[in-house]
């Protein structure tokens, strides 16, 4: 059983490393994700459009505001589920 698990794990790891060979090198400024015009747009316009110097904050609370709203819904659901699971039951 443990050997089967180890086999699956090594196979998956080998596949991931094989797939990773096509990804850009560590710290490469020519990587497509960095050169994409959306990333450059955020870096150039985040302050003028949202007034925050921290670009991550501007992205999280302004451009992706609805996503953050949904995130609070996730936390709320998890908190409610934990409360319901751990509440003392009256017999």
């Amino acid at each position: 059983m443990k050997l089967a698990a180890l086999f699956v794990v090594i196979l998956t790891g080998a596949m991931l490393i094989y797939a990773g060979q096509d990804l850009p090198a560590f710290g490469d400024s020519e990587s497509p994700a960095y050169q994409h015009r959306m990333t450059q747009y955020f870096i150039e316009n985040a302050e003028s459009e949202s007034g925050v110097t921290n670009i991550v904050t501007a992205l999280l609370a302004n451009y992706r505001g609805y996503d953050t709203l949904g995130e609070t819904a996730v936390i709320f659901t998890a908190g409610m589920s934990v409360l319901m699971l751990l509440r003392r039951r009256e017999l």
Partner: protein
Amino acid sequence: MAGIIDIVYAEYNYWIYVTLMMIGFYAMIAKKNLIKKVIGANIFQTAIFLFYISLSDIKGGTEPILLHGETSTHAADIIYTNPVPHVLILTAIVVSVSTTALALALIIRIYEEYGSIEEDVILAARRKLNPEFSEYARQSEVDSQ
């Protein structure tokens, strides 16, 4: 041989994340203790966080907080690292905390019910309590029909 070392060194962040992720994956599928499974899931998630954050790194770049005039260099010379993966991972960390909390609450309930967090003990107790739920009974029912 030198070529292989160069390939590994250029992308060593991927090797680290794959190793971490596989440690977590092994803990999830091979361990019988439910708490250890949750720890495995957390290691798995942390590997994904590290992968995304390492994708956003640029050599010589600063963190994506805008600098104004304190430095003598021109604004155009400052390289900021990619802010988008940071934002995605902030969301992922929140989801990770939520799932961990829910898993631990479920484990507490399981412990109250069965007095154990070992998977095989729980399954044996469950088979004894209601035999109709056991895989063997279900299979023989399927065969008899």
